[in-house]
């Protein structure tokens, strides 16, 4: 096996571009997943069965089917319905939607973990629904689930390479492009693989530390 260090040097500018795209997709996807997940979690606690059931079915369906196929679906089917999104936006929506079904479960667990006395206290103080959720329940629920949410962000990071299939030039996309031009396959794919470990290992250590601090 030959290892060509100058190939690594040549690839670096493209690598940084790819890393930037990966991080953009990750941050936007995560924000979408956090927001949508909260919507799903609150809808699942709704008193109306017509709200609860469709959301239950939707989240189970999205969670139990592959993200890759969902990305293809969004990328090819939405334009047929007259909605044209760029590859990057499609990727962010796909990633965010897929992981929102996971974060919904996390929020649900967090909300269930808030003691019943808190709900009763809010009721006794005659707080309106919005204050009950916004000032009493969610601040306690979300604090507990921050590490769990963080772990899903790490999982999302590891799913971002899939976005290259719809033409987003993130790290793997850049690596493929570089490899197809120069045939320096060994170096670039190894570099990208190592980059993922270098990012996700400290991130998972951070989550473990957060878990010890916040979940008390």
């Amino acid at each position: 096996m030959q290892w060509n260090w100058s190939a690594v040097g040549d690839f670096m500018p493209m690598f940084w571009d790819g890393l930037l795209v990966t991080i953009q997709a990750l941050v936007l996807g995560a924000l979408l997943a956090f927001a949508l997940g909260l919507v799903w979690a609150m809808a699942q606690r709704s008193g109306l069965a017509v709200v609860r059931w469709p959301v239950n079915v939707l989240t189970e369906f999205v969670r139990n089917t592959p993200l890759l196929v969902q990305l293809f679906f969004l990328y090819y089917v939405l334009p047929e319905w007259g909605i044209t999104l760029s590859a990057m936006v499609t990727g962010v929506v796909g990633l965010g939607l897929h992981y929102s079904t996971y974060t919904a479960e996390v929020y649900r667990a967090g909300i269930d973990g808030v003691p019943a006395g808190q709900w009763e206290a809010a009721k006794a103080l005659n707080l309106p629904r919005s204050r009950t959720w916004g000032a009493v329940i969610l601040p306690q629920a979300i604090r507990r689930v921050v590490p769990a949410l963080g772990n899903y962000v790490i999982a999302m990071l590891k799913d971002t390479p899939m976005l290259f299939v719809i033409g987003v030039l993130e790290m793997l996309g850049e690596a493929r492009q570089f490899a197809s031009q120069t045939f320096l396959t060994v170096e670039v794919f190894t570099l990208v693989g190592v980059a993922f470990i270098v990012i996700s290992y400290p991130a998972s250590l951070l989550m473990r530390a957060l878990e010890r601090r916040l979940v008390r």
Partner: protein
Amino acid sequence: MSEITWGLWEILLKGVWITVQLTVFSAALAAVVALVVGLARSHRLWIVRFISGAYFEIFRGTSALILMFWIFFVLPLGFGWQLVPLWAATLALGLTYGAYGSEVVRGAVQAVSPAQREAGIALSFTPAQQLRKIILPQAWPEMIPPFNNLLIELLKGTALVSIMGVADIAFGASLVRNATGQSAPVYTVILLMYFVLAFVLTRGMRVLERQAKAGLGQRPEKKSWWGGRKAEVPQQQRRDAVTATAGGER
């Protein structure tokens, strides 16, 4: 443009068969890896713990798709090992999900009460006998629900092989899309196919869980209508939720 003809359905159904095969083979490999690495991670020799811990962090830290690219393109070029695509994909998925599974095995084995192990020592069981007759039978039912989640993740992960040209469901879908010129029908159909496969796996694991728990005189916990996971909340959190009192934040 046109309907999905019988010939095209056949492509999709062949794809289902490849996906099922891939899921079964990778799950078998992952189970072996998970058991070996999971047990090695609480071995008494530090070097064994270190190596298995490094394996866990490396394979969990990287992305399954990147590993797949690596096995498909770097192994043949760098080391001269060319694998049949189906086996290369099995290897990539098995090694990745085996790493995730090792954490499940480790946790379940550690959750078995130490008194059980001590009783085994007192009865002069060999370490292998302790493992086989005392530890694993009690740890196994605890492993099934998280294994079910991983199995679904693995099923979803098999779609990645379509990128490498293995003719699974997702690969069949791209052929059908090209043939019919329409995306909505075929992608809806294959999403439903994956959903049904996931449902069958979940139900199967539920049966397994019920049997395993009945063997220990336990009843399985309540599940959602789907029979699937409740979110993974760390143990500590769950305990916290039970013991926390109003305003009891320290």
